[in-house]
């Protein structure tokens, strides 16, 4: 995959919690159309990094530019509207809404009707609702869940809940999709299906950044791999380069082998 223009650039990014440097001095550039994996031992700061990028944490120092625009300091929903969507390590769906409604919620930032439209059932409102529903159905179909559209999210199987989260994120029309451990708890077959799904997402023109623990998935899918340890980036490169890197081996296996 040849990389396109710079999509996101994090410079000297840090997030400290009191004395704890959850991430520190992180520099990262993402290019359009890439699939980049972030790996690292537990507690390395991967999820914190994602949280800073999506506005959950404000960041202590440094900057993030998305398509040339500084995004740190913006509210979560503003960042989502600019085109960064994400899923969560521990699935966070709207449990008592149907699968279809979960995806429709994702369309919120791409639709505009407020009070009078719904109250008076104005034509513009009806049209927008129909468009929201059509788009949501298309995405449910894309992740292979159209027939489960009327099932409450809490009643879906684990694998489908993961897919639904991805569909909801895609509904916001992201340019960058951030997946936090998408294959966690999946068996090898399910993981393979997910890899295929991520490839199809890439084919839609979406850049994908993911945290992943299954090395088979990482090696298979990534254009580039970034390695975190103790809150700092210790290595970056193609999957092959990274697994041969002495610092990475040390981080995972310890020294003196």
């Amino acid at each position, binding site marked *: 995959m040849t990389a396109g223009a710079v999509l996101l650039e994090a410079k000297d990014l840090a997030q400290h919690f009191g004395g704890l440097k959850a991430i520190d001095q992180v520099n990262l550039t993402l290019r359009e159309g890439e699939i980049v994996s972030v790996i690292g031992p537990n507690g390395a700061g991967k999820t914190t990094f994602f949280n800073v990028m999506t506005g959950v944490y404000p960041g202590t120092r440094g900057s993030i530019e998305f398509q040339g625009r500084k995004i740190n300091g913006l509210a979560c*929903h503003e960042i989502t509207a600019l085109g960064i969507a994400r899923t969560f390590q521990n699935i966070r769906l709207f449990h008592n809404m149907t699968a*279809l409604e979960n995806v*429709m*919620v994702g369309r919120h*930032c791409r639709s505009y009707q407020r*009070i009078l439209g719904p109250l008076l059932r104005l034509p513009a409102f009806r049209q*927008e609702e129909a468009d929201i*529903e059509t788009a949501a*159905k298309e995405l449910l179909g894309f992740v292979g869940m159209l027939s489960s559209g009327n099932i409450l999210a809490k009643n879906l199987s684990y694998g489908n809940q993961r897919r639904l989260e991805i569909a909801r994120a895609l509904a916001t029309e992201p340019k960058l999709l951030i997946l936090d451990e998408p294959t966690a708890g999946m068996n090898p077959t399910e993981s393979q299906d997910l890899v295929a799904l991520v490839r199809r997402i890439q084919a839609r023109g979406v850049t994908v950044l993911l945290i992943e623990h299954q090395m088979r998935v990482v090696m298979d899918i990534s254009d580039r791999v970034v390695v975190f340890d103790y809150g700092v980036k210790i290595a970056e490169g193609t999957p092959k380069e990274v697994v041969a890197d002495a610092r990475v081996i040390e981080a995972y296996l310890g020294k003196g082998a």
Partner: protein
Amino acid sequence: MLSFVKKWGLLAAALLLPLLVKGTDLSYLVRVGGIVGLSMILGLGLNFTLGYVGLFDLGFIAFYAVGAYTAAIGAAYGLSPLIIFPLAIAMSMLVRLALGVTILRLRGDYLAVVTMGFGEIARLVINNLDAITNGPKGMQVAQLKVLGLAFRNNDYFYYLIVASVLLCVLASKRMEDSRIGRAWVAIREDEVAAKLAGIPVAQLKLLAFTLSAAFAGLAGAIFAYWEGFVTPESFVFWESILIVSIVVLGGMGSVSGVLLGALILSGSPQLMQAFLSSAWINYRYLFFGLILVLVTLFRPQGLLPSKRREAELETLQ
């Protein structure tokens, strides 16, 4: 959800009630119906914040009071009811908006405590602001006359209330079934996920919070005209609890649930008063408590929990 036949049957029954009981010794049912109707409007209002968004609010009655006192003061100045009703609604929403801007960053129990405090403060202010509200002595409200039509007895108010309930049901249903309604429920289900799915959470909470007061303001204005008299004692903490109970009993976020909740919790004391000896009436709050405990234990989702809309899924395949 009530089926089509049931729905229209209930509406017909509600509309015929005054005619059926006219001249019989059941004619007090019209007044009971009106009281239940006002509770329904209040319940539907609170349903926006407590039901859809899940914000606990223990001072909702304050906005009923704002509506009632706006109407009473407006009437004292000789304003036309055609101005007073919108004014009562607007004042209620305005006060609610001002409160919401300051307290909506609080969550859960903290929000409940602060709204409870506001409810009490509002009552105390009304009680002590003699120059405007005439304090604990209360205010007379002139008879409601709209375009030459004088509201002479309970029947007039009953129909006004039924019409208002229908309007509020329609507004609730329509907001519920829109991107705003979906966003509200999403916030209730998982606030963090909602934010990251692109929902401006603070803004939408404030919207629900403010809209809910429109219902309270409307109910308050009707109440003021109907009673012909307002006093701070009508807006005590217990009334706020009653509305919360209505929403919880019926089913949070469920319009038909709220209607049923109001019918049970607001109707039963009135009927008990009519049928049971006075010794029993003293136990009615105990009876309420028992109902709520039982519902919480055995049917936490409420008597008529909200159902999600089913979509037609075949069209795309």
